[in-house]
């Protein structure tokens, strides 16, 4: 599979070739949610699709059109035929658009936007209700309830226009999301999780809404294997916090140990709560991530 985000597609979130590949995919959920309108997902509710589901006794007031006259003829009992209902799915992408995402080579922010675009495209193609949120320390940018393939260009423009700025405060963002977002469905949280306030609170807020939560952690290769040397004053791009370090072999070793432990910690935290966790490095080709890793995680089919 060719590497898609090469030079000529640097600013393009999705290339046309990649879109055609994405059309074969759909977003899966391990739970069955009640949708709002008719869609292509099976609903908990019994409804009007052509697929038979069950029988039940007739009670006064039921629509006579759904009586099974064959049963009545054989057993003289009034039974109502129930059919499967198909409804739409809420797909929500929460992506971290803080200043720290505008960093790394390849850039973490662009990478995240690409993932969001791909997921949104898949959702739109499958008539899912897609909501996009870009957050930094507040839930600053949102595009809610988009449905239908024709809105793809609008979604991509929205994603492109989100600036990468501000600090990150996952718990505040998750709280306001939980309050505002009523529907249920799949929520995909994409961030680097380098939040000084911690991620546990945020994840708890999201879980409280009984959502099917996916967590994708995106890190730049410079974060995974720092190439820094010498006596440095490290400046945090988000909060201008300074750290004076002298890079030494033991320090680098310790840093990597800490990073591994941090990611492992996040993964355990998620796994324990039934959340799917995926770690990715922006050096991993984006199409490989979408076509292979996300499918392996069960988010896409």
């Amino acid at each position, binding site marked *: 599979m060719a590497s898609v985000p090469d030079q000529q597609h640097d600013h393009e979130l999705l290339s046309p070739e990649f879109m055609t590949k994405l059309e074969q995919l759909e977003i899966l959920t391990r739970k069955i949610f009640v949708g709002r309108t008719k869609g292509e997902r099976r609903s908990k509710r019994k409804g009007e699709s052509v697929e038979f589901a069950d029988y039940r006794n007739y009670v006064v007031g039921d629509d006579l059109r759904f009586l099974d006259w064959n049963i009545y003829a054989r057993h003289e009992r009034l039974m109502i035929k129930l059919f499967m209902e198909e409804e739409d799915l809420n797909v929500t992408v929460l992506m971290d658009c803080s200043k*720290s*995402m505008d*960093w*790394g080579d390849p850039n*973490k922010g662009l990478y995240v936007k690409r993932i969001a675009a791909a997921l949104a495209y898949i959702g739109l193609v499958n008539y899912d209700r897609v909501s996009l949120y870009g957050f930094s320390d507040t839930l600053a940018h949102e595009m809610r309830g988009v449905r239908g393939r024709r809105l793809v260009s609008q979604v991509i423009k929205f994603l492109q226009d989100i600036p990468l700025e501000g600090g990150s405060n996952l718990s505040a963002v998750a709280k306001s999301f939980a309050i505002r977002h009523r529907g249920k469905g799949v929520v995909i949280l994409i961030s*680097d999780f*380098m*939040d*000084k306030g911690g991620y546990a609170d945020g994840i708890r807020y999201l879980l409280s809404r009984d959502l099917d939560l996916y967590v994708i952690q995106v890190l*730049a290769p*410079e*974060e995974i294997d720092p190439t*820094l040397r*010498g*006596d*440095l*004053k*490290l*400046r*945090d*791009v*988000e909060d201008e*916090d*300074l*750290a*004076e*370090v*002298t890079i*030494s*072999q*033991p*320090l680098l070793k*310790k*840093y990597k*140990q*800490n*990073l591994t432990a*941090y990611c492992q910690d996040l993964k355990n935290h998620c796994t324990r709560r039934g959340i799917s966790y995926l770690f990715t490095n922006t050096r991993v080709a984006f199409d490989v991530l979408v076509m292979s890793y996300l499918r392996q995680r069960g988010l896409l089919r």
Partner: protein
Amino acid sequence: MSFLNLWAFWITAAVVPALLILYFLKLRRREEAVSSTLLWKRAVQDLQVNAPFQKLRKNLLLFLQLLLLAAGIFALARPIVESEAAEESSLIILIDRSASMNTMEEGQTRLELAKEQAVRLVKTLNRTGSRWFTFGGAKADTRVMVITFADRAGVVSPFTTNTSDLVDLIRNITPTDARTNMREALELAEAYTMPTRKGVDNAPISPEQGSRIILFSDGRIGDLEDLVLRGGVMELRLIGKQRANVAITALRTQRNYETPEMINTFLQVRNYGPEEVTTDVSLYLDGRMVAARSITLAAVPVHAGSDPTTRPTGPTPVEGSVVSLSFPGQLDTGGVLEARLAIDDALPTDNSAQIVVPPPVKLRVLLVSEQNFFLVSVLRGLPLEAVDLLKPDEYENAAPDKLERDGRSLYDVVILDKHNTERLPAGAYLFFESVPLIEEISVGEPLGYHAMMWWDEAHPVMRYVGLESVIASSGLTLQAPEEAEMLVEGPAGPVLLRYARDGRHFMILSFSVEKSTWYNRPSFPIFMYNVVRYLGRGGAVAESGPIRPGDSLRIPLPAGESKTTLTRPDHTTVELTADAGGVAHYGGTHQVGTYVVSPGIEGRDRFAVNLEDESESDIAPRSFALIGGETVEVGRTIETATPEIWRWFIAAALLIALIEWYVYNRRVMI
């Protein structure tokens, strides 16, 4: 432990604040943006939490740097450890500062080496006097006395326990070019150690008590044969190991008697080294080269295993190692002749020699006599510029400008034959059977036939003059003050007197030559020659021979001057005051070179001091033992006897630097 270079600690005062300032002016760090400092801070904290000595660790590098600095400074201060146990209560240090101690040994003179070793010894012995930098507890003081000697001995420091004073005093010992005379030093040392008081039972306290003498010398001591060590132990610290030296051992000039402007210069050059030497000898007159010659001097083979008990002053000259040269020349004025060797050897002092050549002198003599055939004929035979004759009454009545100028006689010598006079302008006078009419000299009963009893053969006037068979038929009995010098003694007291007063120099003979058997003896013209030369040159003809360092100068001053300024070879000046005879004396001739007085008498205002000493020029160190007592030789090298441990401090500094490097690479700091 004590230190040789205390000034090194002053560096601390300068360097430590600088280091602290540098340390606190922290490293200027490059700023680097990262996505989050979260993990970095956590990593740094983790490392710090895990590291031992967290508080120390923050300043560990500073601490190490200070340690490094301390080690370096300690090394600079040249610490020495006490390797010497001083059981004695007192110790005498003798330091030789004679000419041979100026020999260069690897960049330092022997005297400097000796001083340095003495300083070490002193610092090792006494630890209480050296104030705060002394480590270890106080211990019994050893009183140390320091005597330095060359031709004369001097007490540098009487018995004291104050180490810092001793060190200063020892370091201030100045070199001289003088010969070695250790007897005086030993006598001084004994004078201080021999108890003057008696013990309780009225018995003298044994001088063995704590009289250890440590001698720092190269063993080139001229008067070894006469030295006796009365009790006690002498340790000899032999300094130096150079042997090669070439020296001018003699420089003389002689004017031709008949034609005084012809001058002959004699020069002796000797090689003491174990290698053959070819060098140029050049002769300078007042700084201008007048002659040069190349000479080759044979080597002196090293005597294997020189026996320390042998006492001769150096090996006998090997064939060819001594070269005598003679430079004939012409010089009708006075000047300073200097001979130089174009060689650079260990002892530069004896590579040049100077001699002051007085201008050729022809004397003017006035004979005051009725008539004296003998005197006239002898005087006519002498090489004089002029001999004038005056009758006694002519002399008394002569106009002053014929006899004197500025209160000084126009004649170099005035001879008065049987004529007592009061007319005595400053000058030199020879009286025959007469006396100057001055208070101090008086005449007693006349004397009949008499012979001469004794005469001073050593005096220049009496040189080669024998008076064995001289009998005078009559004579005066002279009475003179005690300071008058008696040259010839007769049965009734002095026959020939020398007396100087108020710028006048008298030579008084109590009999007349024609009234004695002397007139036909060969000794009479010799006497006349001697006495005219002696008086005519201010009475110092014989003294214008070689002057050695340490000899005192006798400087006649022009009439009317009582003060003069002497310029030494190193261009320092000394004010001198003349004594009653119009002569100034100066004893500080420790340096070789030319000493110049101003104002001075023309031709007698310069004095050349030369080493010309075989014992000093032979610089090979020589061990010896003295008669009596016990002489122990300790250390024969130019290295120190007291170990210096600065190398350990340098090693420690290196180690600390390594640790610092390791820590620097391991360290983690915010």
